[in-house]
């Protein structure tokens, strides 16, 4: 009797399961057969109507039947869920090559990038960063740097004047004097900034950027200077960049050197950028002149110094392959856009 009822129910279930394709139909199936008002629960209720001694066997049959149906239902439920998820994914598929929706970031100026990079490199070596005034007095810009009035070294620095003894700084070197006047040695400092010279042609802009470095300690030498500048060159260009010293002259250093780095374009084999020499001139430096140290109120027998200066725009041009300094000051966003970090 119960066996027949179960068989009939199984037939219905088989048919119903075979037609299920969606979660909605699964719910219907559950309600119709497995729910509180479902057919299998109804079979349980029918147990009361059969003889007492047959009940355990019939009950076992119904339970077995219910378990098997539940198992099949769960399997189908998992399958449908998987199918539906797949359909959702399919319908939501996007063309990843379509444009992004965003506020595109802008960019820092290339000279700023180079300035920040150099300051970071030197900060790591114990240098502070100091920025001075673009307008300087004659004393700090020239005289204290061992370049008195009518000194021939002033020729190379055509100066903008604001007043008789007030100038737009022609280099970042006056920072050396300010730092020696105000900081307690030993110290290390880099001084980036805008500088100005009366020069405006194909290869010069009347304003450009330099970075000055100064180390004041008890025993520093040319070897330390080359160590520092080697680090700078490697950080700025590539780890295998080399530096070379050759004699030069600055009134505020003695000895003075011009520093060449191996050409970042050809690696030193010679190309158009380095005019076939394999070397590019980017820096000047030297051992701080004892007079300059004395000018700042320090004892040159106790304190020694190293100083160097480099053109930030020139480094930016070399680093980014910009062949004309005026490009750096053009302001066209097609140019600026290219310097996103």
């Amino acid at each position, binding site marked *: 009797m119960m066996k027949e009822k179960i068989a009939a129910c199984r037939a219905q279930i088989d048919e119903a399961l075979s037609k299920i394709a969606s979660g909605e139909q699964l719910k219907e199936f559950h309600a119709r057969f497995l729910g509180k008002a479902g057919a299998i629960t109804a079979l349980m209720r029918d147990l009361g109507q059969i003889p007492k001694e047959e009940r355990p066997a019939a009950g076992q049959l119904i339970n077995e039947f219910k378990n098997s149906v539940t198992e099949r239902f769960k399997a189908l439920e998992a399958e449908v869920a998987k199918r539906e998820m797949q359909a959702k994914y399919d319908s939501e598929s996007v063309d990843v090559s379509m444009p992004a929706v965003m506020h595109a970031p802008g960019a820092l100026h290339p000279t700023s990038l180079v300035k920040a990079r150099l300051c970071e490199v030197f900060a790591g070596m114990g240098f502070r960063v100091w920025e001075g005034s673009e307008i300087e007095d004659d004393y700090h810009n020239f005289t204290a740097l061992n370049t008195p009035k009518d000194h021939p070294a002033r020729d190379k620095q055509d100066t903008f004047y604001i007043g008789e003894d007030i100038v737009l700084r022609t280099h970042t070197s006056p920072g050396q004097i300010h730092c020696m006047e105000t900081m307690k040695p030993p110290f290390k400092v880099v001084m980036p900034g805008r500088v100005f010279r009366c020069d405006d042609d194909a290869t010069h802009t009347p304003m450009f950027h330099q970075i000055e470095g100064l180390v004041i300690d008890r025993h*520093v030498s040319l070897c*330390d200077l080359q160590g520092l500048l080697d680090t700078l060159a490697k950080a700025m260009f590539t780890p295998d960049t080399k530096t070379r010293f050759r004699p030069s002259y600055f009134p505020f250093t003695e000895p003075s050197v011009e520093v060449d780095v191996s050409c970042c374009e050809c690696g030193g084999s010679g190309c158009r950028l380095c005019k076939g020499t394999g070397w590019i001139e980017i820096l000047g430096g030297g051992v701080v002149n004892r007079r300059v140290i004395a000018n700042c109120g320090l004892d040159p027998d106790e304190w020694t110094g190293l100083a160097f200066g480099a053109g930030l725009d020139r480094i930016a041009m070399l680093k980014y392959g910009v062949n004309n300094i005026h490009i750096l000051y053009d302001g066209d966003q097609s140019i600026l856009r290219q310097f996103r970090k």
Partner: protein
Amino acid sequence: MLLPISWLRDIVDLTDISNDTIEKSLFSCGLEVEERKSAAPDISGVVVGVLKAVTRMENSDHLNICRVDCGEYGDDIQIVTGASNIKAGDHVPVALHGATVYGRDGKVTTIKNGKLLGTPSNGMLCSGEELGIDDDWYEGAGVYGILILSDDTRPGADVKDVLDLNDEVWDISITANLPHCQSVWGIARELAALLDRPLTPPATDYTVADVTDDEIDVTVQAPDLCPRYIGHYVSDVKVKTSPRWMRRRLLLTGHRPINTLVDITNYVLTELGQPMHAFDLSTIAGKKIIVRRAEQDETIVTLDENEFKLSPGNLVICDAEKPVALAGIMGGLNSEIRPDTSAVLFECAKFMRDNIRHTSRELGQSSDSSHRFEKGVDEYTTGVAMDRALHLVEELDCGTVTRRRIDRRANENPVPTTIRTTFEKLNAVLGISVPREIVTGILKRMNYTVVTDGDSLTATAPAYREDIEDYPDLAEDVIKMYGYEHITPRMMEGCAITAGGYTLAQQQALKLKDVLVMQGFYELINYSFYAPQDLALLRLPEGDPRLNVVRIQNPISENYSVMRSTLIPSLLRIVSHNGKRGHESGRFFEMANIFTPAEGNALPPQTMHLGFAVWGKGESFFTAKGAAQAIADAFGVTFTYERTNVPFLHPGATAKVLCGGKEIGFFGQLSYESAEDAEIVGDVFVGEFDYDVLAPMFPELVRYAPIPRFPTVERDLALVADEAVTCGEITDAIRAACKNVTDVTLFDVYRSAQIGDGKKSMAFGLTFTPTGDAPLSPEAVDKFVDKILKSLSFRLHISIR
């Protein structure tokens, strides 16, 4: 300076040393060869030809057909020429097909095979002019017609070999610390020391004749400006043409040969670096030379016929009556050497470089002499140079050297500089240990007198080295000769460890820039100066502080003549520039100093400003405000915005920005008038903040505040308000009415006929935060809203929709 290599090789023995090696050696001495030029850079492909036959062309009255033997280039080349000074057997320069020579206009031209009156001509016979030379270089090169070469020249030989045009002339840059290298001799001396090669000093011997003429009186009244003055009298002068070897050297070094006396002064200047002058003694009144400061408004006419009005800052050479030379710069026209000059006073002096430079700049007058004096001339060489000039007078047979020599020195017994130091100190500068014997060897080769005792080192500089002051100078001379390749990189061993890095203020400035970059801004760097017209774009009213600018006294042009008092004009120029380049929108900022004039001799103070501009499609007052707000949010400060007026901004769309009770700047829409002046298409919104006021507002420390234990509650309110009521007023009123409101955000504004004319509906999102120890119940929030609505209705006549 220009250095002919043949001359250099004459003085220092450079056998077996190539020009390339010489260049490298000079480079390591700090003498950079800027250019290596051939003596005749433009002449090529010209060879010696022997004329085998010269016949008159049949249909021409002046053209000749020549058959020319050019050796390996062809032994029977037909060339047509119009010249008439040639005959068979002559050796002549022949420019073959492809050769380059100078045309009639002085420009370089290339010779090609062609036809003259139908007759093939396969080259050109050249004149001296076409080869760029005249009689000063080669005998007969100045004649009109073809240059006839000597008969012993080989057909096919390059004329540059035949005419000595293969010399090289190098342009060498001399740094200001090497005045002793400003001459052929000086460079030779340096090179000889470096390469350890023998030197041949220029001859300085001569014989003197007794004279009975009047004494010549020399008085130096300004010994501070003229520490040494030598005058030497040469009688029986014969003014003539100098020998070709001298003329050639003068030509190669950029001097025009004039006559023996003038040429000798230029030759000595080039050879030894000592400027000289020759006075016609007959024009020197009273046979007196006085070196003194000029009197106020005294005048002189120099050799180039320019008249100058002088002042006591200028040094002049005078006779008993008048100035006869502008000291160190140029002689006077009144005492110049003439063809009939018979007696000469040579002047050889040291004038102080600062004074010569000052006078040269002040008067705008310069010469080879002044250039040398400005770099510095040493008074030892002053004496040598006079002897050299007198030797040349004798050698060129252009006068009689007399016994009359007057030598005035401020310091009768100059003591050469002696440096007492130690090898250790020298090596400490370099950072390496140069062996003692190498140090002393180098110093001796550089003509120092060296005494050593253990580690101590006493070096007396040669008399011509007035630049030596201290032991680092010795260290530099040693390493130049020893070689900079001996310096090895080392990282500040033994130096103190120092704390480096950015200050907080510097870090904040970098962060501020990054915040703007992430908002889509491009950083600009503009010049610190601009044109008054740039400032005029702002149409500032009289009295506006931005019109009070720092001016540059000597600007390159009006375009860069005033220091910036505001960054806005630079931003406008950039926006305009981008518009003209086809861009339709853009965001830009610049962080830079602005300048304000100072009183008296004080430095004009600079203030760091942040200027920004957003322009074009998609930008509005509120996107500009968003950029400002992003800064506030990034640094955790509160900006408040109040309506204000700025002369060049839209009167209805301009806000001032306050932070911590201080006004930090403004932003708003650029006025249509200024936009038109700046040629900007589309709306542009600009702002400028005083970073020096803003930066101190950034908190240095973050203090943690506990988050509320119970959740916040959100409520939206749609309010109807009069048009005139501002969002800020409503927000303030809501906050004032209920202390539990922790956030008020406007999210919609709506106008319609239904709401009524002159009214607007504004939807606000409110956040209520529980303050006590219990969660907020819906009833409690209802009460808050009630209170807020009552307050809004009472204070601002606002109703709920």
